[in-house]
């Protein structure tokens, strides 16, 4: 990472807060289902607008992930407790949410309602609208990456929102996900205490 560039790139709340309201405007017209489709297409479009990547080895890929050189970690700082498990320290949406709470007030209910819709129709891993964007983006970005000529796959294990609320993948999915991640349930809970996301990247 380039500290000088990072400082230059520090986000301004105006854009994030305005975007939240833009999404609420869409929900007013199209409801939770329409907003969900919109968020998913927003994230997919973003991933598709970024260049494809190829790595010769998983180690090379892990290095790129850790320093934010891969498209999939371009917006978040991660560490990798195991070769397949990724942990996001802070949600890239945290600042926008905090500024929204400060400048506008309580987060509109629609952000949670659309997550309920997503959880019921896509996969039960989102707490609010921002997780729909984030998780869809990761899945779409993973599709653009190959390691040693083979595609990379993504799955979400758990999410923690800025206020501490947690959403963990369903019990019946956990054994497989934890096995792929190479961590135990206790280690997962340890990671969830002070991080934002636990997810995996793997190959068949």
């Amino acid at each position, binding site marked *: 990472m380039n500290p000088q560039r990072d400082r230059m790139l520090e*986000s*301004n709340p105006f*854009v*994030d807060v*305005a975007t939240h309201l833009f999404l609420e405007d869409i929900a007013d017209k199209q409801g939770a289902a329409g907003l969900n489709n919109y968020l998913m*297409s927003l994230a997919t*479009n973003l991933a598709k*607008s970024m260049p494809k990547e190829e790595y010769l080895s998983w180690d090379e890929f892990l290095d790129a992930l850790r320093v934010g050189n891969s498209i999939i970690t371009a917006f978040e700082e991660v560490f990798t407790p195991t070769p397949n498990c990724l942990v996001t320290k802070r949600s890239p949406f945290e600042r926008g949410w905090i500024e929204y709470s400060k400048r506008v007030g309580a987060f509109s209910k629609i952000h949670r309602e659309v997550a309920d819709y997503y959880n019921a129709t896509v996969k039960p891993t989102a707490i609010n609208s921002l997780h729909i964007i984030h998780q869809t983006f990761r899945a779409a970005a993973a599709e653009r990456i190959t390691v040693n000529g083979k595609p990379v796959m993504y799955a979400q294990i758990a999410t923690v929102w800025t206020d501490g609320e947690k959403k963990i993948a369903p019990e019946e999915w956990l054994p497989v996900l934890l096995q792929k991640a190479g961590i135990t349930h206790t280690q997962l809970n340890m990671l969830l205490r002070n991080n934002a996301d636990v997810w995996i990247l793997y190959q068949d």
Partner: protein
Amino acid sequence: MLDVALVALIRDMSEKAGVDGTIQYWTRVGENLAKRIGKEAYMGWPSFNVAFREGRTGFSIEGDAMPLTDLAITDVDGDVVGYIYAMKQCCFVPTILRVRYSVGELPRADRAVAEEYNNTIHDIAVCNFCVIHEKFREEVAKNITIGGQQLDALLLATRGYTGETKISEKNLKKIGMNPDQVRALLRNYECVYSILMKGAKLKEEEK
């Protein structure tokens, strides 16, 4: 990340709704944001300008801006009815740079939206986000009173990421400001606007 995703959407939005549709969207975003911020009241210009400098007004969400208190706007009677305000850095520059370093380049629709806005609404936009700014400030101003009087905001000049500048002759005339004066301000600031009493009897309007 949200901002970069939104930029990626501009192309899609402009293809589906047209560049004029994107302008309508952005205008509504600016309007909605301002309406949600709420009302404010100040006793006089000094208290408003202190609040502005300390980032306590509705305008502050845009980022670091400052009142240029040496540049007062006066009415026909010579009373102070407003001031010039300026931002050192446009709040969209970090987004533009993030797009540059994550996606590669801004979508061409950004330019198309700005040009459409300049041709049809107000020749002041240096990027598509200027559309949100102008509406946002106009609406925030409506929610603020100084000494019981509602405010108005006029966008005067902008300088884009690439150095392109736009100066609003129309708004400068209204407040009786010389374009050279604002051009000098653009050396140090990226966005210059005025906040003034709504309905103030300005020199230009008296003519």
